């Protein structure tokens, strides 16, 4: 975490670059059809879109978790700090500072909260002292986890599990966290709390985030830059503030238009309208 702070002088520097990738599952199912994006150092980049748009697949392509699900990147390239990511395994990525927090939390249910956090430090070799110090740091960001440190993670609430999953990722001293759908199944108040902590981590610890999220409204309030994905393609991108004001985004993702709030029946996908317009 500290390493990232010192390198945080040039905010425009690109950490992660995804260049026109295509992903195929099981040799037949084409999920991503040419996705390109950049993650700036020290920023929060949001990846938006509906179900099945390819957000999770994009994140897994970066963290190299695709392989264990029989998926592979067949075209294009991904580079992190200029080095090609292809051929590295997830452990290598974690050692390089890229860690994914998966959709649906995925805590180790039968381990205690503290043991869960400690597994995050698996790849580290910098001694017990440093790990213990980071554990305390995680507890200062997530005081609730400290209260529940000895409970089995499977018995904690959804919000606590999400905190546990993020805290576990922090224990690896990451430079970039790939955060998949942190708002899933959580009450709006908790979503705010978790996004607030994400912003804190970004500002105080200098951790960069690539955030996949269906909740466009919240994501665009906290992110600096956004990409909108549909059916495996990037259909729009821009600074978060601009996306928020964009009439199409407003209409199709935020559910507001000039005529006021729309019913779900009228909401069409962005891409279809684009085609119709052009």
């Amino acid at each position, binding site marked *: 975490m500290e390493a990232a702070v010192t390198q945080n002088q040039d905010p425009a520097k690109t950490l992660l670059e995804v260049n026109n990738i295509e992903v195929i599952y099981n040799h037949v199912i084409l999920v991503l059809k040419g996705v390109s994006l950049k993650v700036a150092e020290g920023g929060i980049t949001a990846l938006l879109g509906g179900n099945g748009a390819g957000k999770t697949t994009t994140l897994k392509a970066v*963290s190299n*978790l695709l392989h*264990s*699900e*029989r998926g592979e990147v067949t075209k294009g390239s991904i580079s992190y700090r200029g080095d090609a990511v292809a051929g590295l*395994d*997830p*452990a290598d*990525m*974690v*050692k390089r500072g890229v*860690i*994914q*927090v*998966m959709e649906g939390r*995925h*805590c*180790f*249910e*039968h*381990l205690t909260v503290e*043991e*869960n956090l*400690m*597994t*995050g430090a*698996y*790849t580290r070799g910098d001694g017990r002292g440093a790990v213990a110090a980071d554990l305390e740091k995680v507890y200062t960001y997530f005081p609730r986890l400290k209260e529940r440190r000895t409970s*089995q993670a*499977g*018995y904690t609430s*959804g919000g606590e599990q999400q905190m546990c999953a993020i805290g*576990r*990722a922090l224990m*690896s001293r990451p430079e970039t966290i790939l955060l998949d759908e942190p708002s899933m199944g959580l009450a709006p108040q908790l979503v705010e709390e978790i996004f607030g902590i994400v912003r804190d981590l970004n500002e105080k610890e200098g951790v960069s985030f690539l955030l996949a999220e269906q909740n466009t409204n919240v994501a665009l309030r906290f992110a600096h830059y956004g990409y909108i994905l549909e059916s495996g393609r990037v259909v729009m991108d821009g600074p978060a503030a601009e996306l928020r004001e964009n009439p199409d985004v407003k209409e199709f993702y935020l559910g507001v238009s000039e005529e006021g709030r729309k019913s779900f029946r009228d909401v069409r996908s962005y891409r279809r309208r684009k085609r119709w317009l052009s």
Partner: protein
Amino acid sequence: MPEQFLFATEVVLNGLMAGVLYALVALGFVLIYKASGIFNYAQGVMALFAALTLVGIMDGQVPFSHLINAIFGTEIHHFGWHVPALLAILLTIGVMVVLAWAVQRFIFRHLVNQEPILLFMATIGLAYFLEGVGDLMWGSDIKKLDVGLPQGINDWIDVTTFEAFGYGFFIDNLDISATIVAIILVGALIAFSQYTKQGRALRAVADDHQAALSVGISLNFIWILVWSIAGFVALVAGIMWGAKSGVQFSLSLIALKALPVLMLGGFTSIPGAIVGGLIIGVGEKLFEFLIGPMVGGATENWFAYVLALIFLVFRPQGLFGEKIIERV
């Protein structure tokens, strides 16, 4: 009546000792099943293979001697040395680790994310392959295994109980040492999985493969580790059974005795494997003693399976089967 009671007590004690050996075999199954979801049919053959290797190394047998002699027309069978038991055990552990690596590298690495039934079939293949390799490597004759564990009736127990009750209990020294070794082994395993980094990683993998991958735990390494530990447990079981009844190919069938133990104790629980083993051990001895004479004996062959069937009906997850934590 008191005499009958004393007989029964002796039967129970002997049942407990036999149960320890069942538990040891079942333990190997549980370890692999917990960490990788693979039901390892080859666990019994691994015990046989480990025992064969141990005897082979101790006696200075030349591995694959029949094959070598057949091809080159030579007549070599022995190196002509004897390796001390402890060193031979260490070497055998090395062989089991290599085996674990090979199993992972050549079989299960290619079956990532496949159906459990496919993985199970692969272990059946492995069982037959390993049995064949064991045969080819060390020969198929029955061998005597003696690693220096005390054998025979324990005189002290015999004399003490005779003085106390007027009836001396017959308990084999080998069973006593098996129990002690098993207790140490289980203690070490629990300490390893609770208090070490790799142990924690192992439990993490058992809970959630994907999440373990995502925090940078190498599944490949953990699975090699688990198969190595299972190989070690198989070696211990092989030593105990081998010392008791000689190293022969029927040793691989003890795996079948472990199945009812697992159904009783639950496939995912280490304490379950132990308690299940003890229940089966005591149960079958006691049943034979009490009910056996009424039905013409030989109940030991089927008692365990009937008990397991009853458990499957009333408590399919076993006594200690993992409670499935489900949040809505």
